Each structure stands twice: as structure tokens, then as C-alpha cells.
């Protein structure tokens, strides 16, 4: 595990989880793994907040869950996107994209203070 980890901006965890589940279904541990691997270890889900977030998203109808057997034969709870969740992912991802582009533009202002 890398030692330089970034803390997640407020409210982005839900978006990241939705994205990670998009290719799903996955169980909670797999989701945490995917997040960490995809960010090359930069993003780590804050301690103790993954499952509350999963349950909250399930409760809002953005995720659905079923109990299924894993490859190792154990029972696990698999989450997948609902139609509503997919729509939410699209809009949120889009607005995130716009926001980050805008932030990069501002940071790249040509007044030479920051390079």
C-alpha cells in the first residue's frame, strides 16, 4: 500500500462507489479493492464508511443487492446498479467532469504564479 493517500472530497464517495459497481455485481470487499486498484492506491475508502454508504445507496434505490455464492463458495452480498443508479451515475459523473475541468482551467491560469 502506498503511503501517500488523498482524502476524498466531501460527497464523492457515493459517486465512486456507483462507478465501481457499474461493471458489477460485486460484493463490498471487491468494491473497496476496485476503488483502491483503479486509483493506483491513491484513494482509500475512509475507515468505517464503506458499508454505511452502500446501505444508504441501497436504501435510496440506486443500488440493489442479492446474496450469491463467490468463487470460493462462501455466501456474500452482491451489489449492482439499478436503472435509477445508472442514471444517477451518468449525471453525477458528467457534472464532476465539468467541475474538474473548470478547476484545472483555473489552476492553469497564465499568470505564472503556479506551475
Amino acid at each position, binding site marked *: 500500500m502506498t503511503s501517500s493517500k488523498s482524502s476524498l472530497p466531501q460527497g464523492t464517495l457515493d459517486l465512486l462507489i456507483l462507478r465501481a459497481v457499474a461493471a458489477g455485481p460485486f*460484493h463490498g*470487499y471487491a468494491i473497496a479493492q476496485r476503488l483502491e486498484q483503479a486509483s493506483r492506491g491513491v484513494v482509500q475508502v475512509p475507515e*468505517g*464508511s464503506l*458499508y*454505511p454508504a452502500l*446501505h*444508504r445507496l441501497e436504501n435510496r434505490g440506486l443500488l440493489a443487492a442479492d446474496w450469491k455464492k463467490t468463487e470460493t463458495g*462462501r455466501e456474500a*452480498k452482491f451489489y449492482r446498479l439499478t436503472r435509477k443508479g445508472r442514471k444517477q451515475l451518468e449525471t453525477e459523473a458528467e457534472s464532476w467532469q465539468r467541475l474538474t475541468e473548470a478547476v484545472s482551467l483555473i489552476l492553469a491560469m497564465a499568470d505564472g504564479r503556479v506551475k
Partner: protein
Amino acid sequence: MNWWSRLVRRKQLEEELDKELRFHLDQHADDLIAHGSTPNEARRQARLYLGGPEQVKEKCRDARGARWLEDLIQDLRYGIRTLRLNPGFAIVAVLSLSLGIGANTAVFSVLCGELFPKLSYRDSGTLVKIVGIADSGGTPVRLSDAEFRSVQSSVDSFDEVASASIQIFHLTDGVSEPERLVGLGISPNFLSFLGVSPVLGRDFSLEEGRPGSENVAILSEGFWRSRYAGSRAILGRRVTLNEQPYTVVGVVPSDPWLLRDNLRVYVPLAADAAPASQSRSSFIWDVYGRLQRGLSVTAAQSELEAGSPRWASSDPESNRARRLHTVPVVETVFVDRAESSERLLLLQTTVGFVLLITCINVGCLLLAHATSRRYEFALRVALGAGRTRILRQLMTESAPLVALAGLGGMLLSFLGTRVIANVWGFHQTTFFDARVLVFTSAAVIATAILCCLAPAYRVLEGADEAALKERGRAVGMTRRSHRLLDALVLCEIGIALGLLVSAGVLVKSLGLRLQTTPGFATANLLLARTHFLGEKYTTAEARARFIRRALDEVAVLPGVRAATVVDPYPPSGEQAFPILTAGSQTFGEPRPTVRHRSATSGYFRTLSVKVLRGRDFSPRDEGTEPGKAIINEAMARRFWSDVSPIGRLITTNRDGQVAPLQVIGVVATGDNNLAYHPEPQAEIVELSAVPSEAPWFMIRTDAEPLQLVPMLRQAVHNVDPNQPLAAFRTVENWIAQESSGHRALAEVLAAFAGIALALVAIGVYGTLSHVAALRRNEVGVRIALGARPGMIVRLFLMKGIRLVLIAFPLGLVASWILTRWMSALLFGVGFAEPKILVSTTLFLISTVLLAALGPAWRCSRVDPASALRAE
């Protein structure tokens, strides 16, 4: 999954949550082992990474939708379990809360029915009463025939107009003795106008009541049941009312408003068919109108106002113009509203105070309970429970308590309403009233909040790490929680003191009032009323002859010392007799008034009152001109301070004529405390052969007066078998009855003060027990250092006395509030009577000491070794 299935499948969800988290941990640990960690190290890492399992679970539960409901049910279960573990506390709390809520609701129901009556008549909101008021002001008076007919024919604002007139009937029916009845002569549409239908038989038809139609009558249900045993054979029965044959055609129920149960019989009476003596200028009609749909009272009022010059007769007294007014019927139905509302407000304030004491009490107990649970709550906060969650739990835990108390309060209030209405003679109105339900619920909810607030406050500021650390030692009470408990107990004691003081003041005033006699021996005085009606007694001579012969018959009965006929009988009577001139003095408006009664010559002999100056009446004085009168000393002093009043003339206004009276004697002034007059009243007794149309026989007997009733009946029967006697009573009974309202109020207030005292004792006991438990260590140290048990007991008792003394000003304020409502009943005492203050304070102190003794004693017996070991 909706919230309901979540709730039902709660256990399954918990298992799944557990399984899910376990799977995660195992999976993570397996991965770490695969990367070379030892199994122990791997599990530790995985756990660290996921976070504390209980905290994660708690957050996951929060993320589920129906969390609040799950918690609610869990807390309720917990609350019920706590109550069952602590039955003594539960019983005391529920009983005292029930009492508080029940008493409040009962008084409020009566208050509500009295002050804001809900009439059961058809569309009662559209009913108005039409009254005539002279331009010079004055009380609303009834309408004359002519006015009623004008309103009936010319006013467009009303859909329908109906009228009623009080009538006195002599009933003879061959069933039992002739009876004098109060009834109503009503326009034939009156009952249907109100929407009242007969329970038996039929209503009047519109033709009935016209001259020439058959005489028919309707009886009240109560009278029908008592005199005719509720027999259906009453329909079609022929009875004689005022010497006229009538046929009974129906029976109607009574109500507390326009058809009160003292009205026994109804006959149809058309305006133009009223007895000749009551026509034209006499104002006999209570007239009611039903407003046209959508029309306001003000609109009807302006129409009446505009038409008044044409419709209204002139004021007979002064010949001044009258105007017609409309008043909603709801506002007219209770004559004695002002007086009873004051009493009811007094009661309401009293029971409000008692409810407050109850709340404080239960709050104290809960607070003590919660303070000792500080460790539990601190632990739960540390384990991840939010503070609002704990606040909610405290609220919900007391919910079963308050729910039980609310239920008990409801039951008590149903009983209490009946008790107050019956014992206290308030009008029985509908018992179930949505407003009362709202009030009860508000009372219960306010109680719940009040009860929980203190402990919740305590726990919220106290559930911190300090509490956890204190676990090693017994959790001591902080200075602040001490102060809060003390403040609550102080409030309680103050209010109780206020209740005690006002009850004491009321009792003392009652005592003062009954102590003084009305100026004559009240024992063995029998009263019975007769009423002159009908052809036979139209002339004064006929009436005088009847009275003379009846008195002769009565005088010779065994056991009779003396007899007279009088109206009004002493000590009743209003101060309403105007004096125009007295000797050489002439008085302008407003004229001085004195109390007046008319009596036959035996009056003072019957009362055994000596004439101080001048002489007593003699039978020869009857019919002489000018009329003869005897006055009391108060009156003599008022009008003739320096000369003798004997032989002087007094003039008064009688039927618009100036009437002279000659003073022939002076008697001592009796005290008139019954009417709450601090000063003795001036009184004049006028000799009259026929004191009034409905005078009272007053008979002085040797023994128990009511035993004479059959002989008295027989004596009167011998003179005229058709002349009824009614309203048998004794002067003593009447005085007792007159003061019964005061007595009942004093008793109720004393009862509530007693309840408050008991509650205070419970509260002080509970609080001090708790304090004693918490100070066990301290006391142990003190004893180990050489303190004797007596010193420990004194420590606690001094605290009790201090509490009462500090609460004293609060008690003064409470008693001031209460006594404001009973100013009319206070006679010769103020709200802060020193004697009463001192005695009630001492009483309260001894109660508090008694309550403190138990805990203090127990605490002083602490074994220092065991107390210190617990440290």
C-alpha cells in the same frame, strides 16, 4: 423493501449485516495472509481497515430508512421493562400523574361546558335571543306582546321566530296532593324551532294555543317519571292546570339551557291569548329567532335597530324609549356565569398547580433515576450512540409511563366530571367534547415533555468521558445536578404552600361567615310556600282571608309556638328597596336602598326578636294608613342618626306611586354575613296582610320542624283543599345550603392541598433517598472520622427546613394567584393572613421533616467500613 418489511424483518437484517461484515473481514484477512502476514496480524489489519464493527453497524442501521420506528419500539420495550423492574416507582408515578391529568380534565370539561356551552339544538349557531334594552341602559328585559308580534311579522332577518313565557301552574290530577309547578307558555312552534322532539307523544300543532282550541299540555321527562312513574298511559290523560282542564299530549326531555329540568310543564300560548292581566304593557316573552342562512348577528341587529322606534314599546318604568337587540342564544343560557366562572377558574388554577407538582415530582424521580444511569449513557455514547438518539430514548422510555397515566387520567376525568357536576350543582352538559380531548392530550404531552426535560438535560451535559472515568468510584452528584434537583423540589414545595394557604384562607372565611348568627335563633323554623293563582284569589281580601284563617289553624297545632307569613324570609333578601324620603330628608337619584320584607303581625314574635324602641306590630295595624313598618338599628342610624325614628314617615316607590310607611319600632341589627357584606345591612319590615303573591309560612316549632309538615298540610287543606303548599324547608337547612358552594369549594381546595402535600412528601422522600444513596461514601468518611448518627440525621433535616424556608416567597406568589379567583368568597381574611401563613408553613415543614426522616436515618446507619470499601 419498504419500511414496514424492514421493521418486521429486523432480526434477519441484523444477521445479514453481521454476515456481510464478517465476510469482508475474512476476505481481507485471507488476502493479507496470501501476501505473507500471520493470521493474527492479518485479522488485526483487516479490522483496523474496516473500522470498529459496532460503530459501522450502528451507522448502517442509521442508513436504513425505518430506523426511527425500530428505535421507538425498542425504547418502548425498554421503558416497559424498566417500569416492571421498578413497580413502586411506576405505581407512584402513574397514580400521581393520572390524578393530575384526571382532575385537570374533569375541571376543564365542566369549565368548557359552562363557559362555552355547546347547545344540542338544531343549528344552534343561528339561534339568537331578542331582548329589549332601554336607552338609559339596564339589563336586557323580555319583550311585550306587541313587540313579539312586530318581530314575528316585520323582521326579515329571521327564518322563524318563537317565544316562551314563564308560568306558574297549580296542578290537580287526583294522583296525589295538588302541586305548584313552574312551566312555560310557549308559541306552538317553540319545540320544533329548537329541534327538540318529544320522547313520547307529539309536539303541539300550530293551531293549538289559539283561543277556542282544545287545551293541551306537554310534560317534562323528569316530572313524568317522578309523578307518573314514566307510565305511557299519561298520553291523553286529563289534568287540571289553574282550574282549567288540559289533555297531556307529549313528554319532552330536559336540557341544561332553555328547557331546564325545573320547568315541568309546557302549554301552547299564542301572543294574543295571554291572560288579560299580562297583555299590552307587561313584558313576559322570551323571544328567540333563527337567523336566515348566511346572515350575521350584526345584520339582524341593524335591522332590529332600524325598526325599534316602530316596534318597541316604551320603557314602562320611565317611559323612555327601548331598542331591540339580538344576542346569540349561547351567550344567554347561563345566568350565573360570572360567579361560576370565577369558581371554575379557581378550581382550574388549583388543579393546574397540582398537575405541575405531579410533573415536577415525576421529573425529580426520573432525574434521579437518569443521573444514576450516567455511566450507562456515557458508555453508549462511547460505543457510537448519538446524543439525540439518547435524548430520544429517554423521551420514549417515559412514554409508557405517560401513556398509562393518560389512560388513568381519562378514566378519572369521566368520574370527576360527574362528581363536580353533581356535587357542585354545575349544569350537566355533554361529557364528551373534542375540545376536552384536545386539552387532555395537550396536558399529557406537556406532562411527558416536562417530565423528560430535566433528566434529558442532565444526561446530555453529563454523558461524557468524566462519567466513564468516575466509574471506578461511585458516581458522585455534580454541583449542578444537585442544584437542579433542589430547584425542582423548591418549586414543588412553594406551590404546595400556596395551595395550603389558600385552602386555609377559604376555610377560615367560611368559619367566620357561619359563626355569626343572622340576628335570631335559626333553629326550629319551618318554611313552606304557597302561591295565589286563579279566579278564587284575584282580590286582596280573598288572599288576606286565606292567610288569616290558615295562620289561625296553624297557631293551634301542637308544637307550634308562633307563625307568620312573610316574603322574602330571613335572612335572605336583596338590598333593593328604594327610599324616596325619610322624615324630612328627600333623596334624588340614585336613591338609597335598603333590604325589605313584608310580613304579617306575628313576624317578630316568630323570630323571638325583641323590639328595642317603639312597639311591635299588632293585628289592629293591618290595613291602617299609612302602612306600618319596623326598621333595624342599622337603618335607624343611617337615616336618623340623632333623633328617634319612631313615628317618622318613610316614602318609597310602589307601582309608580309614592307610598308612605310609618316607623313604629326599632329592632337590633342581625349580621348578614351570608351575603358576604362586611357591614350590617339596613332593613325594613313592612306589615302586610298579604306579603306577596307567593309568600312563605314561617313557623317556630318546639321540636324538629319537618315533622310538622303533614299537620301543616292538613291545616291548610282545612282552609282550602285546592291551595298547594310547596318548598318545605327549614331556615337552618337554607343557610347550610346557601353556604354549600363555599363549603364545597373549601373542601375541594383542602382536598387538593392535601394531595399536593402528599405529593410533596413523596417528592422529598424520593429525592432525599437518592441524595442519601449518592452521599453514602461521604457519610461513611464522616462516620469514620467520628461523626455521630444524630449529626448525620440533623444534616438532612436542616436541608429539609432550608428548602421550605427558601420556597416561602414562591408560596406567597402561588397563594396570591389563587386567592385572586376567590375574592368574592373571602370574608374578613386576606390572602396572607399571618396566622394561616405561620401554621401552614409549620405544617409543611413537619411534613417535609417526616419525609426526610427515613432517608436520613438510613444514611446515618451506614457502616463506614463497607461504604469506604466500595470506594
